[in-house]
């Protein structure tokens, strides 16, 4: 039994890292949103599995949030925003896709090395889980850094947050997991609904983060 649970959890975590790589690869906004939905779905499966293994019922709530909010509601909302604002669909990446992928691989290697130094007596599942979580976080951060468009930055941030949820659920018996995931989803909701629809559009014609930066307080 122990072997199977370890393998499945391991599979889900690996799947999450793989999807993060796919997200780095996308350069269309719609495709990016779909891949993000996929990632959220894989996350909810992993959390559900962890709930099953650790027979911790509260994790099911987190899995549900991940599934409903992040897999369905937010991608659809973003989809409609992208359509209504008519922001151009092409996602301008700062650095070429090839270079981003290379950086991604280096980051995963780095998180593996960092996590391997952790001594063995912590059970291997936790160590593997953390390594994957760290890679998803770093990839999410890389995503935010290499995209010009505000929408893709938010997607990067959300994938980073997925990594966090993966780490949190991986830690057996961690309290407050549900509260934290709720806090984060409130955060994300605030972003998507409050900031975007109400204010950013009211002031700027494009949500290209570059436009935001030009309105600087101390422009020379």
């Amino acid at each position, binding site marked *: 039994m122990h072997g199977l649970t370890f393998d499945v959890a391991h599979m889900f975590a690996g799947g999450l890292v793989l999807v993060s790589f796919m997200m780095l690869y996308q350069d269309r906004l719609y495709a990016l949103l779909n891949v993000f939905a996929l990632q959220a779905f894989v996350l909810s499966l992993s959390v559900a599995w962890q709930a099953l293994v650790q027979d911790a019922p509260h994790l099911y709530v987190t899995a549900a949030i991940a599934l409903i909010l992040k897999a369905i509601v937010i991608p659809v909302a973003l989809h409609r925003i992208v359509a209504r604002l008519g922001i151009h669909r092409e996602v301008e990446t*700062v650095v070429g896709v090839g270079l981003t992928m290379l950086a991604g691989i280096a*980051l995963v290697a*780095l*998180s593996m*090395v*960092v996590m391997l*130094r952790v001594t063995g007596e912590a059970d291997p599942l936790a160590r593997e889980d953390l390594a994957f979580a760290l890679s998803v976080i*770093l990839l999410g*951060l*890389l995503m*935010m*850094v290499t*995209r*010009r468009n505000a929408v893709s*930055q938010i997607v990067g941030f959300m994938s980073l947050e997925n990594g966090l949820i993966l780490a949190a659920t991986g830690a057996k018996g961690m309290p407050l997991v549900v509260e934290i995931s709720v806090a984060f989803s409130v955060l994300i909701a605030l972003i998507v609904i409050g900031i975007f629809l109400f204010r950013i559009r009211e002031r700027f014609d494009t949500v290209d*983060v*570059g436009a*935001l*930066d030009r309105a*600087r307080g*101390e*422009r*020379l």
Partner: protein
Amino acid sequence: MPVVVELWCVAALLAIAVVAAVGARMPLIRRGIYGASLAVTTVAFAAALALPADDSHITLPLGLPWIGAHFRLDALAAFFLAVINLGGAAASLYGIGYGQHEHEPQRVLPFFPAFLAGMNLVIVADDAFTFLLSWEFMSLASWALVMAHHREPDNARAGYVYILMASVGTFALLLAFGLLAGPDGNYAFSAMRAQTPPPLFAGIILGLVLLGAGSKAGLVPLHVWLPLAHPAAPSHVSALMSGVMTKVAIYGFIRIVFDLLGPTSWWWGVPVLAVGGGTATLGVLYALMQNDLKRVLAYSTIENIGLIFVGLGLALAFKGNDMPAAGALALTAALFHVFNHALFKSALFFGAGAVLTATGERQMERLGGLIHRMPVTSVAFLVACAAISALPPLNGFASEWLAFQAILLSPQLPQWGLKLLVPAVGALLALAAALAAACFVRAFGIVFLGRPRTPAAEQAVEVDRWSLVAMGILAVLCIIVGILPGLVIDGLAPVVTALVGDRMPAQLGVPWLTTVPIVESRSSYNGLLVFLFTAASASLAAFAIHRLASQALRRAPAWDCGFPDPSPVTQYTAASFAQPIRRVFGSYVFQAREHVDMPPPGDMRPASLAVKLRDPAWEFIYTPIKTAVSVAADRLNLLQFLTIRSYLSLVFFALVLLLLVLALWP
């Protein structure tokens, strides 16, 4: 317990400052402040003189929590307290009269007593924290005073350069105290005396103290703020800053190097001597190039500080080679000059203040002929000029004579470095003395003698009684100390014994009060006899001629070589008076270049002569630093205008870097 009396005086001064801050508007308060600070400083002066044999110390629960604030009054502190409070009393007395002309008194009154309190506190402080706290408080109060006339544009620059240099000095002292206190931080001076730092640390501490105390005193490379700040302050404050605050800096140097730094090694004297000699000559050369009276006096302060540091350097060299008798002579010469300089420099700045009040002018080119309109000020100014130029019957000569005797003792020093350095420094000292005489002939001659060059100088009128009394007292003191140097030398004996272990032979015992540096036969100088001898022969000659020669006297226009109506402008001005010296010395030191603009014949444009001086200190040290900082500031300023994405990448790189460090950590 005189230290308690001192602390009460400091508290009183701070109280006066608070009262002044609150009630600066009311005229009654305005006049009372200077009177009150005069009273308190005289009490402090008396307490400092009436020091019982043993030194008294006290610890208050203030300052660093686990050490408390230590205060101590020993022989060295008593002498410097006497000098400071004498200067402070004279400045307060002068302030009573001079303060009336201040049109924004609320900017000067609160900070004047605070400045005095800060200086007194530095002297009695006996642990690193209290010392630096009062040192910086003194700089802060004097910065506020320099900013009193903040409306003139270059005062703001003077204030800024001053406070920046002051904080450089404080950080140097702070680092020196850090080394002295050691890692576990025992900051009390008594603890510092117990442990002696290794020779390398001692060298670093000496360098840092030279930087710290030197920048406040005005040693040459660090002097740039002094000629900007001192003239910017009101005159009685510039007198305090020049005559007294520089002495606090010297006290700081002596306290750390002679007292806290443990056994002296001979090579400590070398940097001090070199810097002292350089400061003396360059200081007075700068003074000769200036046309603003108060800047001339500020630069001449730098020269006198150089003289004092030469004395201290010699004392260090002698003490390092354990020759206490010679060391005592050199240290007495230095401390004697500290006392003298406080006297005549304050008198000179009071004179400059009186001229400023009477004519509203500081530029010497626009003064002249004031001796006829301000007789008393001119007499006091003349005595002070004679004293600072080290003319025999006055006090300037007495301390310089001791310094030369100390130099003559130095062939006994074994080290080769000193054998070559001391004669060179002796030559620099002699050159500086001669240049000082030239500088003050120029200052007195251009300002007080000749014909008034502007209407302002013509309508000058004598200043009020208080200022005259203050100047008079200081001038008379210069004469008395010049005639009876033995009194001051014996007064200094306990200080010198405490620091160098030996003292000069007692002067009172010697017949006719002759000053004997080392041994009776060696050489001696008798101020009293020289004064009596000159006075007698002068009055004898005047009496004889008055009786025998004719009394007839007729006024007639001066010989003008046939020129129709010689206007006052044809007289020699400060710049033309210094022209020969500028050509001889200035062309090397300051790259002095004269640019003559002579219009072609028939062109009615006035001809003009412009002198361009390049200040080596600004050019090679301060301007490069300023450009370096502004270039760095420009380059880093771009970081303010990046996009959010680039800021995120900053965070990202930081994270990756740290993780890499963790991964590679052994």
